[in-house]
């Protein structure tokens, strides 16, 4: 009996000891989880500068916090400050040309120079809030809201992404849906398309809307211990005011000179656009280095199609340092209604001379340096050059830009 009592007492002691040990361990784990669920902060500042044209400074901060197991709240703030000149769409001529700004004043482009509107100066603020929530052991949802505002443009949107892991988490299916409502408030009102540029232009209102809907279906597949592949298809529909209210076209007479009356017309684009994209990405790790390769094929019902190749090779230098060369190649064919200029007497239903709708090739070369520190912080900087070369019937000049970015990530 005594022995039994002693055994009971011993069992009680062991039970208590185990309880204390378990509690201590759980407290310790809990403390570790708490310690690991600090705020994650990503920050960056981008400097973008085109030769003789637009310059942009864009700081961005993103924070993320784990609020329970695998559930996160996040927020991103971006300020985007733009100054400089933008091509207005008119062609260069052998004599100086005078244009009307959206607010009704004027500016002059010298002879044989591409006309640039120097009145661009804007600051854009964009906010994003996100919620990552496990919906089951294998299904995760990411829901976010976006809002951005600039002087003549506001945008509000919602996004939902659902991913499902299966096949021992070697395969992930992803579906995404986003919906944006944008509001355009052009300086001086939205000009009536294909009407004459003038200080007393006819307008179609001052507050025009467009909606943008996107859906994405994708699959991510683990190929092997060191290779991952992703394949996506996305479909988008734009509906509403899709014209650029500040772009014009030159109208030439039969002799190839600017016509005498109303030589410049405001552009006009269709009010709907259906977009498609196929996207393929591979990440492969060599001994330590990692190669990221992606390819996108895009096409839409404006007649534009494009190919985008992107290659990044992360080369480990040791001690947490790395460099990453980057090459991006983009080639697009023009939309059906792109015209370098119009001809008097044959004005089409839709027309734009915006170089971004023309045949063109963009080539970007860059290099990034980064260091991952022992405390988990990371600093990186990248420097890239971008060249846009026009093709087809676009006789406009190249656009060259320099991109510099500094980034710092840390937890606290």
């Amino acid at each position, binding site marked *: 009996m005594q022995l039994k009592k002693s055994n009971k007492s011993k069992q009680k002691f062991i039970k208590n000891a185990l309880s204390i040990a378990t509690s201590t361990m759980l407290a310790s784990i809990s403390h570790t989880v708490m310690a690991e669920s600090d705020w994650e902060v*990503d920050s*960056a500042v981008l400097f973008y500068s085109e030769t003789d044209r637009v310059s942009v400074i*864009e700081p*961005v901060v993103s924070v993320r916090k784990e609020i329970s197991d695998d559930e996160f709240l996040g927020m*991103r703030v971006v300020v*985007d400050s733009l100054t400089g000149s*933008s091509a207005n769409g008119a062609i260069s001529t052998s004599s100086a040309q005078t244009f009307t700004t959206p607010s009704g004043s004027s500016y002059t482009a010298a002879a044989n120079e591409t006309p640039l509107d120097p009145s661009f100066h*804007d600051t*854009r603020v*964009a906010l*994003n809030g996100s919620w990552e929530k496990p919906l089951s052991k294998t299904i995760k949802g990411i829901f*976010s809201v*976006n809002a*951005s505002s*600039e002087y*003549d*443009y506001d*945008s509000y*949107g919602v*996004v939902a992404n659902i991913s499902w892991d299966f096949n021992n988490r070697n*395969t992930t299916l992803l579906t*995404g849906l*986003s919906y*944006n409502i*944008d509001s355009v408030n052009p300086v001086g009102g939205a000009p009536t398309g294909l009407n004459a540029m003038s200080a007393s232009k006819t307008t179609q209102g001052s507050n025009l809307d467009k909606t943008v809907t*996107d859906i*994405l279906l994708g699959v991510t*597949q*683990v190929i*092997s*211990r060191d290779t*991952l592949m992703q*394949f*996506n298809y*996305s479909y*988008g529909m734009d509906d509403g005011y899709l014209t*650029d209210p*500040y772009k014009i076209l030159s109208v030439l007479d039969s002799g190839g000179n600017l016509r005498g009356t109303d030589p410049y017309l405001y552009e006009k684009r269709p009010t709907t656009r259906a*977009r498609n*994209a*196929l996207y393929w*990405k591979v990440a492969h*790790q060599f001994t330590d280095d*990692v190669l990221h390769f992606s390819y*996108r094929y*895009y*096409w839409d019902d404006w007649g534009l199609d*494009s190919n*985008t190749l992107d290659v990044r090779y*992360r080369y480990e230098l040791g001690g947490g340092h790395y460099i990453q060369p980057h090459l991006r190649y*983009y080639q*697009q064919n023009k*939309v059906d209604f792109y015209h370098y200029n119009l001809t008097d007497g044959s004005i089409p239903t839709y027309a734009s001379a915006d170089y*971004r*709708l023309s045949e*063109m090739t*963009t080539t970007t070369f860059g290099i990034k340096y980064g260091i991952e520190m022992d405390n988990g912080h990371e600093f990186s900087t990248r420097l890239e050059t*971008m060249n846009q070369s026009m093709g087809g019937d676009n006789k406009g000049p190249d656009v060259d*830009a320099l991109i510099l*970015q500094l980034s710092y990530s840390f937890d606290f």
Partner: protein
Amino acid sequence: MKKTIFINILLLLSLTSGCSFTGVKPWERDLLAQQKMQLDTHPLDSYLDDHIYYSKENSSGGQGVGGGGCGCN
């Protein structure tokens, strides 16, 4: 024509590589778990790149959805 060729290449790739997608066991995920092996290693880089190319070219989509609009003159 280009579209057909592209779709055929992708179909061929998925058919020929489909048989070899064996995946990995949970204990073989050491490399895949690294930050540098994520499909988007630096989301802010991607965000800023998207903003640049959305403003300067005329294609969008493929990699993801949403992100907020801009006048982008």
